[in-house]
């Protein structure tokens, strides 16, 4: 739960529960220490309501300067560890300063909370970012450090079907060596979508060995000269085995569901972006790689059912 648990025995237990906790969808969330926990899922404009239960440890009284609950939207850069940037911060005062002798329950509610960004968990440790939503319960104390309890939750924001969704079509090549034309049926795909397309070989003078389609995620953080970019290949999907000849067309059908994609995030709070690319890689007999990278947009489809 908390890394302080081993060091000091906390004077009280704090638990946060949601009113619709039993029915609300739970999704896995990977915490900093690698643990995966199930947390409730919210979307923007929802009411977040529940109770905070504070239970003092047997026979102890907790003197406090006030109890409050905060809803925080935070971005944490890995290269700037521990320094959270709050893009959303809502506070509800739960109690005036006083003493707690017995278990006390505080209901709370944040109504129609604006949560424009989705929770996002970058994987790379060296440089990555961490955008999260958290409820923070703080029991303020005068001369001792405050007692705080965090309850994570996840926000997903859904997008309707895009009205315009052109195909990606392009002819590329190396002069007199290789000319191909590829086509992906759409430029925007939802998370469970399938990429359908075709590659036409217009000219082949190189002996091919195989062809793959890679899905690459590019996280970029910072701005200007301090921009950090990290690219990660999420999928390597073999499309073709062997050497095609002129005139061949190779079908593409790549299901996105097995891969852990997130929607494309563009310039989240001026802090970071996450973009997705389809990288078509042709490998020749001598293991030389010829590739063409194309951005595509991923979105979270509002499930109508």
């Amino acid at each position, binding site marked *: 739960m908390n890394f302080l648990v081993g060091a000091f025995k906390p004077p009280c237990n704090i638990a946060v529960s949601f009113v619709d906790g039993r029915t609300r969808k739970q999704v896995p969330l990977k915490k900093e220490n690698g643990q995966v926990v199930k947390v409730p899922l919210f979307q923007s404009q929802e009411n977040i309501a529940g109770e905070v239960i504070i239970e003092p440890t047997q026979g102890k009284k907790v003197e406090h300067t006030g109890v409050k609950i905060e809803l925080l939207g935070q971005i944490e850069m890995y290269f700037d560890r521990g320094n959270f940037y709050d893009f959303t911060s809502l506070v509800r005062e739960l109690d005036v300063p006083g003493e707690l002798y017995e278990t006390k329950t505080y209901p709370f509610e944040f109504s129609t909370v604006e949560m424009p960004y989705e929770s996002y968990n970058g994987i790379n440790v060296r440089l990555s970012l961490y955008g999260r939503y958290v409820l923070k319960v703080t029991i303020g104390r005068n001369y001792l450090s405050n007692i705080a309890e965090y309850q994570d939750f996840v926000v997903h924001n859904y997008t309707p079907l895009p009205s315009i969704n052109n195909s990606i079509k392009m002819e590329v090549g190396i002069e007199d060596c290789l000319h191909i034309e590829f086509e992906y049926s759409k430029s925007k795909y939802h998370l469970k979508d399938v990429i359908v397309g075709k590659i036409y070989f217009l000219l082949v003078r190189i002996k*091919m060995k*195989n062809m793959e389609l890679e899905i690459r995620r590019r996280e970029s953080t910072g701005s200007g000269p301090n921009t950090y970019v990290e690219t990660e290949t999420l*999928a*390597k*999907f*073999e*499309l*073709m*085995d*062997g*050497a*095609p*000849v002129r005139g*061949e*067309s*190779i*079908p593409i*059908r790549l*299901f996105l*569901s*097995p891969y852990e994609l997130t929607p494309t995030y563009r310039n989240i709070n001026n802090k970071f972006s996450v973009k997705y690319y389809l990288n078509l890689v042709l490998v020749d007999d001598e293991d030389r790689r010829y590739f063409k990278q194309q951005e595509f947009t991923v979105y979270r489809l509002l499930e109508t059912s």
Partner: protein
Amino acid sequence: MMVERAEDEEKWLAAGIAAIQQNAFYMHRALDSNNLRDALKYSAQMLSELRTSRLSPHKYYELYMRAFDELRKLEMFFKEETRRGCSTIDLYELVQHAGNILPRLYLLCTVGSVYIKSKEAPAKDVLKDLVEMCRGIQHPLRGLFLRSYLSQVSRDKLPDIGSEYEGDADTVTDAVEFVLQNFTEMNKLWVRMQHQGPAREKEKREKERSELRDLVGKNLHVLGQLEGVDLDMYKETVLPRVLEQVVNCKDEIAQFYLMDCIIQVFPDEYHLQTLETLLGACPQLQPSVDIKTVLSQLMERLSNYAASSAEVLPEFLQVEAFAKLSNSIWKVIEAQVDMPILGAVTLYSSLLTFTLHVHPDRLDYVDQVLGACVTKLSSAGKLEDSKSTKQIVALLSAPLEKYNDIVTVLKLSNYPRVMEYLDNRTNKVMAIVIIQSIMKNKTCIATAEKVEALFELIKGLIKDLDGDLHDEVDDEDFKEEQNSVARLLQMLYSDDPDEMLLIICALRKHFLTGGPQRLPYTIPPLVFSSLKLIRKLQGRDQNVVGEEASASPKKIFQLLNQTIEALSAVPASELALRLYLQCAEAANDCDLEPVAYEFFTQAYILYEEEIADSKAQVTALHLIVGTLQRTHVFGVENRDTLTHKATGYSAKLLKKPDQCRAVYACSHLFWVDDQDSIRDGERVLLCLKRALRIANAAQQMANVARGGSGSVTLFVEILNKYLYFFEKGNPQITAAAIQSLIELITTEIQSDTMSQDPAADAFFASTLRYIQFQKQKGGALAEKYESIKV
């Protein structure tokens, strides 16, 4: 290095099999515990072994078969899985998550099979998707096997007519479309193999390709078995599409194999109805394609089809099969300038067989085929290689076998022209085939014209051809050949004497060109054939009086005289002598004295001038005597001359016993039993006495030379002659003379103890027994014998 490679391959194969087995084990475990995810994972890993590029097709096949067996189990599992509620469409998606394409597609095909079976989607859509997705494998070997797998699993699930997968949306058209597409893609891959890899491994590659061809051909087989592929569909869709692929692939191995496949796989009537299309593709094939075999196969099939039932023949006529085939062959030969002569000949041979089966009544077609063959051959000159000549022999034998009648064949004006292109040896072989056919079928050839034609065909046997080297000819073979020619003669026969004479003249003309080696074989049958005609005329002469026919015996005799004369050049004087005598006898029967005399003269001349060998002389002399004895046509003068000569010859033989025997034989010349004019008892006795003298001399000579008396055989023989004439009533032969002769012999036998000759003794004894017998028989003869004491 090759061995090394083979060893390596074994190793790789073993490793591949081991990996398949291992993954299959885990897969089974996952299947047993209904763990779909693991099952997919391990099956994909197992199938990854098929991604190898190191194995030859043969070894790859082994590996493939291992995986194939495992996939069957997986398919069963998928089926159960769908029964348990996992939707097939989900499964269909799930297997497509595999990152490697080859395992992915194998799994897809496997699930696809289940998908079609579940009927959750139209078979056509699934099939189309599968065949389309398989394009991802562009590696020829792997692609071929994958598509072959697809073909295998889909085979019983095609929406064919009458199949459970046929529906409103799924028609046989879709099934055909699917198979055609798979076929096309497979063929492309197969052809592509040829162009990959270094040039020096071409041979190996071709071998590998031929190992794979059945994978491609199987698609055609599937098409052939689809119920729904009726003639219309075959004509409109299947054949044009297949041919398009065949022609466009521009690969000789593929073209040859696939053409052959088409011909073998689809029914004959389809071929017949689409002949034009099918044949139209032939000239478009690569020049190196062995098109002759292809067309030959086609024609063979059609021939058999035609032969199978008479009902289909009108179909052939309706589609003008002959014209199309012949036209197409012409075009092919035209297009393939480099085609060896063998190819052309094979084609014509097949076409001929076809024609004979389908249009046995159209001799003009047959002749046309032969004519075309001649045209082709004329550009090449004489055939040298044995295969072509063999093929020509087959070509030429076909009409013989079909018609069983050389007369029909003789009507084919181009037949001999084809034969001209054979080398001499083969020409002879062919000639013998022809003769055998005639003999077998007892075909009578009844006009001189036909005989001329026939001899044109078999002239290789009749005379030396240009450039014929004698030393090549085996003696036995030569004899055999000439004997068959001789046998042939009896089949050349006409009831009309005039025609027969013409035939004989023709034969004579041909035989005389044969040279000294052949004449001894060919002349005798000719002579006898002529004599036969003479005897026939002779029989007729009695009925038709005063006829002015050209075929008179006289004329024939003249011919014969000249014919036999030819033998003197050989030389074969003994044979000639016999023939002369035969002729003389015939002339005798015709009452033509001068002719007979002439023949005798010829015989005598031969005897005097040519026959030097004493043994031969003896034989010849006996023949002369025998013939002369029977000849009755001569007047006294002529006869005297001839008999006198003959007697003279006999006395001049070298050996005494021979002399003796010849002389006593001559006695018969003076005594012809049924002719009163020739009964000169005196001269008979003279001959016999002379014979006795000679016998005596012979015995004395034997005494002197070998110190013992000779045999008494001669005496006994003379005694027998005495008895003969005695019985015939020759007044000069008296009982007393016989009596003394018997005593003489008895003394001789008794005195001569040194050299016993049991044969002679027995001979004498039985002669005596004969006399005894005659005595006891009674009657006039017995009375005559009465006075002889034994």
